[in-house]
């Protein structure tokens, strides 16, 4: 479910409490109201990540080393 739009204060508080580096309000503002055309807003990212929760991943692990798929004749 989409969350409330994160305010600058919330992003600042998260950074202050858990982050190793204190990003400036100028940097964090770009996440709230993007103007540079480079980054998706934090709200959009959260909304899309929420939608991706609907994909049933079962017990799939995170991406590991790539192995060529065994052909049927090898199985």
């Amino acid at each position: 479910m989409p969350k409330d739009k994160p305010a600058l204060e919330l992003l600042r508080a998260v950074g202050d409490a858990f982050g190793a580096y204190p990003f400036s309000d100028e940097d964090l503002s770009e996440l709230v109201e993007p103007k540079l055309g480079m980054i998706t807003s934090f709200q959009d990212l959260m909304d899309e990540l929420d939608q991706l929760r609907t994909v049933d991943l079962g017990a799939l692990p995170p991406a590991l080393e790539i192995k060529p798929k065994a052909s049927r004749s090898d199985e």
Partner: protein
Amino acid sequence: MSDVTGVCWLTVRQLSRALVNGEISIHDLVNVFLARATELNPASKAFIDVYADSARAHALKLAEQPGSGMLYGIPYGLKDLIDIKDRRTSAGSAVFADNIASEDAHVVSQLTAEGAVCLGKLNLHEFAYGATGENALYGTAVNAYDSSRLAGGSSSGSAAAVAWGLSPFALGTDTGGSVRSPAALSGLVGLKPTYGRISMRGVTPYSWSLDHLGILSRDVRDCAVILQTLAEPDLADPGSTHRPTDQYLSEIDSLEDLTGRSIGVPRQFFYEHVDPEILGATERVISFLEKKGATVREVETPDLNFSRTVSLTIQMPEALSFHMPWLEQRAGDYGKDFRTGLALGQQILAEHYVRAKRLMTHYRTQIDDVLETVDILITPSTPIVAPKIGAVEVETEGLTEPVGNAMMCFTNFFNTTGHPAISIPSGMHSLGLPMGVQLVGKAFGEASLLAFAHLINSQRQFKLPLPEIN
């Protein structure tokens, strides 16, 4: 060799033949490209550093001990994320302005062992963050076909150097399409091999999970020559595969009749909101393959509308992890756009990151399954031609989006799956700009992928005119 200007447009194999036949010396060949780089770099902004003295010295040394191999005496350029011992790796950033490498990157050692001569380091989007290649510090690399437009990025200088005739080939990196997209926009061949196929040791990371080293060349056969050298496993790189290399060159001519072969066309997403001329060019490539005997089959891919989100959720925490030591000391030296991206990385939860990595597995498995039913996938490389420098948004067939998103929207998915993908020219747009088509192959199926790509790339109907550079 009488036509010195023409030398700059020759392929690696043609240059190699000219050297072997004594039509030109290695020293003269290197000087041709150095002179051209000096003359045209102010306009192209391809190079950050040109190594004129060391390149000439290397050329003289090679001439004393004639060697064999197709890369012997061939000049090349390196994206400035790739280390050369005792040289600066700037990563296109003020943060790394005094970052001197202590060792050669593995790929540099491989090329040096083959006798290739490095001309210098090439421009890029700061730390490879961004598709446009815009760089406030070193200037923005310019498209060889229209100087008001972008060369593409993030390997912008690598594409510009080859397209402007300043280097016969170049290496770049590709985290979301940063080799394939500039190759398409600049009329070149751009290969991103399977994840782990080429060593990343000695390359400044952007996102370990998604970074691939890639090749930009004039044609597919050159690409195969270079891959043959670079694909050797690097046991000292934790991300490198231990799988032995295939014979890329010998297989490249084996494909002529496509009877019994099949081409997958993922029409959903990859064929939507695309410039009609690019779509038409892609359809002509598909028709050509069909006439050669291939079966063309529509295939389904996962829902890709959020694949960029998945990629971003992996990229930014990984980038933040690497950059933290410099961020603490030199935050003011970072460009604002990249620093904002790093700020995003700090807000992403561990659960988000792990979910995105699991979605990588999900996507990879699904594409593996699709590639069980067809030999290759074919898509446009980009939905747009090279955008104007400074453009922020582009509109394509009813969809308005940030220019960087548009430039990477068809390429970044295959960084999450890790499958090999190549962009080759598909024709010229009526605006006088190149268009590209992307082929995607099975994991570690570069030999077959290159054979398909060469079959298309060797046809006169898909050849591009050289850019008119004054």
